[in-house]
């Protein structure tokens, strides 16, 4: 043991005591602190977010779910804005015929935030307040299916669907055999422009990279939509794309953004700025442009570029906590009556899954006069409502993902561009 020199502070016993001992000694306070810390630790660990991957349903599951369920005389229906004539003629007729009242609310702004809103309630097994809702095929639709949040449909209750739905809508890749969903409408994502500012009609997605339109180009913020657009421009089929393709597409989009060409990445409110002239050209959904022109008298144009376009399908589904599933499935089937499908398509101008509606719209046009007649004739012959086989061949769907990691990789790649 070494000798401690007199000048060493260690000789100062008071200092030594101060440095080596707690001032108050291990008292109550520390015990409280310790207890508090461990309680906090437990609390932290207890806050995990539940997730549960559900197995695909068997026929017996369908029977088990539907047996003993009866009609209640009411249905709560959640839909997207501008997705039905605001006077709701179809729903009124439904109530008149069946006695089932419909509470129709256009509450869904986009799939992601809608999913985020209903997910906690569905996870807890609570009602979301709606018996029927419309969800686009894509990431959130897949998640709803994987988590077992959707009711498997009893097709014996869907006779009109079996009879009147187009074959293509009975074998959608995102829900083969319509186990959980039947389509409400499909739509096309292409380019819209305001002819007041753009003289030469764009024919290619390259127009969205045109430096002449710098600062006047609108793009969508949705990762699947902009990803598809850039891949089609690069000649890649989105459905078969690889992560290397995504990277190339993201580089292309970054180039567009960094050149100052993109004014903004919109969620779904690109229509007003396009009408006002804040943007001149943008990525857009077909039916919205038609409705804007009809309601506000604008003269906006929609084009399907030569590279092709994205087709998506909005689907009616029943959440597993629905209070009135029987009424909901009756309403689902009702939309497959050709007359109903026809009047709906006349208003929303999106692709109807009921081909027989075309003849009915033609007969409506024959009875109508003047402007209405022109409008109805245009709807009946519109490739945006009744695409031909050749049109369908140019349409691509979203990339579907094999697991959550792949999806996350895709999303972060494109969101790095839209949220920069």
């Amino acid at each position, binding site marked *: 043991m070494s000798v401690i020199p007199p000048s060493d502070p260690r000789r100062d016993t008071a200092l030594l005591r101060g440095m080596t001992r707690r001032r108050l000694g291990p008292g109550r306070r520390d015990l409280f602190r310790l207890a508090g810390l461990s309680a906090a630790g437990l609390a932290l660990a207890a806050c*995990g977010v539940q997730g549960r991957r559900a197995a695909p349903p068997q026929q017996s599951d369908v029977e088990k779910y539907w047996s003993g369920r009866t009609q209640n005389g009411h249905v709560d229906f959640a839909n997207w804005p501008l997705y039905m004539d605001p006077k709701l003629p179809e729903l009124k007729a439904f109530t008149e015929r069946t006695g089932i009242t419909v509470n129709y609310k256009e509450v869904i702004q986009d799939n992601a935030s809608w999913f985020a809103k209903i997910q906690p309630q569905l996870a807890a097994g609570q009602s979301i307040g709606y018996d029927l809702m419309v969800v686009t095929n894509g990431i959130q639709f897949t998640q709803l299916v994987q*988590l077992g949040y959707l009711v498997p449909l009893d097709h014996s209750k869907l006779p009109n669907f079996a009879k009147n739905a187009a074959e293509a809508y009975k074998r959608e890749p995102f829900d083969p055999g319509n186990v959980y969903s039947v389509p409400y409408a499909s739509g096309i994502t292409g380019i819209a422009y305001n002819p007041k500012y753009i003289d030469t009609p764009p024919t290619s997605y390259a127009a969205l990279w045109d430096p002449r339109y710098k600062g006047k180009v609108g793009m969508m913020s949705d990762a699947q939509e902009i990803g598809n657009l850039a891949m089609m421009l690069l000649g890649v089929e989105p459905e078969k794309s690889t992560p290397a393709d995504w990277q190339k597409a993201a580089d292309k989009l970054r180039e567009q953004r960094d050149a100052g060409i993109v004014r*903004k990445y919109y969620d779904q409110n690109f229509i007003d700025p396009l009408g006002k002239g804040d943007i001149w050209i943008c990525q857009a959904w077909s039916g919205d442009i038609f409705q804007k022109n009809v309601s506000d008298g604008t003269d906006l144009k929609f084009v399907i570029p030569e590279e092709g376009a994205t087709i998506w399908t909005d689907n009616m589904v029943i959440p597993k906590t629905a209070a009135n599933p029987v009424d909901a499935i009756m309403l689902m089937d009702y939309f497959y009556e050709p007359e109903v499908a026809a009047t709906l398509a006349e208003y929303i101008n999106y692709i109807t899954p009921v081909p027989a509606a075309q003849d009915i719209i033609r007969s409506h046009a024959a009875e109508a006069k003047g402007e209405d007649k022109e409008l109805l004739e245009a709807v009946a012959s519109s490739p945006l409502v009744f695409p031909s086989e050749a049109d369908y061949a140019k349409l691509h769907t979203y990339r579907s993902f094999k697991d959550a990691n792949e999806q996350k990789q895709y999303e972060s790649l494109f969101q790095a561009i839209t949220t920069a």
Partner: protein
Amino acid sequence: MKGSRLRAALTPYALILPGGLWLAIFFVIPMVVMLSLSLQSGNITDGYQFTWNWRSYLDGVTNFHDQIIRSIWYGLAATILTIVIGYPVAYWIAFRGGRHKNVYLFLILLPFLVPFVLRTISWQFFLADNGVLLGPLKSAGLLPEDFHILATGVAVVFGLAYNFLPFMVLPIYVALERIDPALLEAATDLYANRVQTFLRVVLPLSLPGVFAGVLMTFVPASSDYVNASILGGAGNTMVGNVIQNQYLVTQDYPVAAALSFTLMAVLLIGIFAYARALGTEEVLEVSAR
């Protein structure tokens, strides 16, 4: 006798109970949940488990440091703008407002009767490329055709400054209002001119008000996402937008929560540094005044 003493001993606890419960339920619990979320790993389909996963913090800062820095700059710029605009207004109301002071204060607060989002959207209309303001200027040839204010950082900063202005005016007004007029007379008696009176007497006495105003403006302005999403464009995204996006769109709850805590830490450090610089020891006490 004994009962009343017991009651006297319990009274403070009874008084703190409503506020304490409120804070415990609506502040402490959500904070613990968020802290827990920020340390979890997994995905929305399989669920998130608590794993002390600090990576989310690293990921958040690596991927989104641009937006964090931009938010601080926008918040700072908006705060300075509110001081420049708000201080003279508060000064005028406090010293020259006369008997209509309350009317002027009400006018400052009046826009607040309109919801936040609606106010911001009306700015969007006002500032549109061919809107009320720019349309006539453009047709008169005073501005080039492609000039725009929307979708720029300037629009976002002005929107923030506009939306948080009353939070700056009111605390400054309160501080100025408390200044004893006798102090101003004393300054004049001691041959101080008006500039000297302001710099040596009024300004130092109003600084606590400015500090409170900065707290109430800088913090919400830096974490705001409404102005950036309505008035901003590509390249004006703030960290609030990223958090919203991570939470609602990507459903990456851990990164969203980690970003929130990172932002909170940055703001706290900034505020305490500012308090130190002002020489204010008791930050919270001053701001509560």
